[in-house]
């Protein structure tokens, strides 16, 4: 089937709901409205109000209740309307979802997926364009996924729903309808914790994910350089092996993400490369990210977000050093 990321996620949800009666969708406006991005469209009609639940407007309520549902043996897939509102559920995620298993030595488990749209570039209101992955990646016990294309989105979500862990599934709004791609109609899994080398190369490694993947890919195509592009897909746990193998081959590495520069995912990756592959490097590690300040209002985002030009200039710089 031809699918954009939006319809690919809808297809994944349809499959997990069809195959597992313990799967429950809950969130704000996920029923009749099909979610504000229409990701859950058509599912209420198919699976009914018992399984596709329009909840009260209460983010901690949605996540906390999902944890309880998971404890009772169900497999909830909750939607938080925008990642910028998920901070209200932060406590439930890091104090409980991440810890319940260890707190009870695996007696109680929290099989649950929380989906939420992330990142900007679509001229939204304040708080609708956040890239908060590092906050959550800092809490062991949570799995953080962020697909960059329809195929990965569907396969990762199905895989997440087949696991017994709490998973945060970040959906870049800019990519929901950016492009379509041929994906399998039926069920398939994309592995967790495994990055995808979307382009092989020998001269430079670019580690990226989410909204930055198509940007990096475009720049590398246009420049005609021999760069290897790694799409993380899973942010935590990090596929360190794939990154290190590539860096050892290319000797140059750049990390590109939309989230703020300081203390971001790029810092973690750079630290690991420094610890384990420093002497394979021919140039200092470079990071391209948004500046370390709150996401600005939409008319300023052109000055804020990493774009093709910023990535291109960074590539020139690292290749000449």
């Amino acid at each position, binding site marked *: 089937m031809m699918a954009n990321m939006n319809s690919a996620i809808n297809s994944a949800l349809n499959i997990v709901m069809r195959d597992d009666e313990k799967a429950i969708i809950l969130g704000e406006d996920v029923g009749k409205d099909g979610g504000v991005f229409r990701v859950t469209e058509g599912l209420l009609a198919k699976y009914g109000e018992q399984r596709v639940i329009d909840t*009260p407007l209460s983010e901690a309520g949605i996540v906390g209740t999902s*944890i309880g*549902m998971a404890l*009772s043996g169900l497999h909830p897939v909750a939607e938080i309307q925008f990642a910028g509102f998920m901070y209200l559920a932060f406590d439930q995620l890091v104090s*409980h979802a991440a810890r319940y298993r260890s707190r009870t*030595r695996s007696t*109680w488990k929290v099989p649950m997926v929380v989906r939420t749209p992330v990142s900007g570039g679509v001229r939204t209101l304040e708080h609708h364009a956040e890239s908060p992955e590092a906050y959550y990646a800092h809490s062991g016990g949570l799995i953080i996924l962020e697909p960059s294309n329809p195929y990965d989105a569907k396969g990762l979500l199905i895989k997440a729903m087949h696991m017994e862990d709490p998973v945060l599934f970040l959906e870049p709004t800019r990519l929901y309808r950016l492009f379509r791609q041929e994906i399998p109609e039926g069920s398939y899994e994309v592995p967790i914790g495994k990055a995808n080398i979307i382009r092989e190369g020998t001269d430079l490694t670019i580690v990226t994910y989410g909204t930055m993947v198509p940007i990096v890919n475009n720049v590398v195509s246009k420049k005609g350089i021999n760069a290897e592009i790694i799409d993380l897909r899973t942010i935590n746990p990090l596929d360190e*092996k794939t990154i290190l193998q590539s860096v050892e081959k290319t000797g140059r590495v750049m990390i590109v993400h939309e989230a703020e520069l300081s203390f971001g995912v790029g810092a973690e990756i750079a630290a690991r490369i420094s610890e384990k592959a420093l002497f394979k490097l021919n140039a200092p590690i470079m990071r391209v990210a948004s500046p370390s300040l709150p996401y600005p209002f939409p008319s300023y985002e052109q000055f804020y977000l990493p774009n093709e030009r910023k990535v291109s200039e960074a590539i020139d710089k690292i290749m000449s050093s």
Partner: protein
Amino acid sequence: MYLTKKLQLKIIEDIMIKKVYEDSVNYFQVMDENGVIDKSQMSNYIDDSKITEMYKWMSLTRAADSKVISLQRQGRAVTYGPSVGEEATQVGSAMAMAPKDILVPNFRQHGSYFVRGLPLYNFFLYWKGYEEGMDGTKAINATPYTVPVATQLLHAVGLAFGQKYLKTDANVLTYVGDGGTSEGNFYEALNFAGELKLPIVFIIENNQWAISTPVSKQTAASTLAQKAIAAGFKGVQVDGNDPLAVFKATHDALENADEGPMLIESITYRLSFHTTSDDPTKYRTEAEVDEWLKKDPLKRVRTYLEKKGLWNESRQEVMDAENAKRINEAVEKSEQFKPNPKTIFENIYSFMPDTLKDEEDAAINSGFWQQGSY
């Protein structure tokens, strides 16, 4: 023109033509502080053998409590929040549960755990600082102690949803303190449960104090029970030092849980400190504590049983000795527990991520966890 608040209210009253909502909160007690039962409030499912059982569970709870405190003072247990004074609320409510019902406590419902069957060994192991103590919770249909205040209420709501959806016919009983009613999660939980009409009973264990903050500083509302009304269901107040009243309220609420949630404000008193790390003499008077000592749940039940000829000093001595023996055995066993440092790495995910495995291997090769090495 500015009107005084009083005048504004008067005008609103005068022009009010339609009352859109009215409700009330009732309070009840079955056994008073002198151990006298109000027969009109008594239920046929409470008899003397049940009352004796209540007394025994409350006594065990108090004995276990004082044991952990003494262990903590010797550096053999972690910071601990005792339940002394609140045994009737915990034991009375937990005894009203069916085995299939699910208990969702905060960090103080030790008595509820005991009634549900949590082994004393698990209890002491946990309070020695080992998560392994909580591996016995699922087997007794209870969730682990939860420390962040009021967060557990939402888990209880989700569990109640699960019971309804899976048609298990089980209900959920959960607890929160008076301080917890000021948290957002409290209102979110009540609202969710009311809207989804879930089989859940919320108990506010109102022990009057949230560390040093009295309940009068938590809210301007005259009762905590009335907070249920805004969520669309009933709230009731009970004498929380009267295990019969707590039992009855919980029993009836659970009995009708298929019709939706219920909130019980159980009015009790924290006779001891918040945890082993604070000193209540700093913030409350001894006279206040003395007043509540007169209402001690154990004292009133013992008085009742003695008057009925069902209890006496020699029975008390036998029970105390039995409790002490069980407790000491459990403590001894918990002190023989050999922690395996690998367990903190291996119970995080359903699989072992390579990066975490590296950290585990590094930790093991360095031997950093060897006792006394830090």
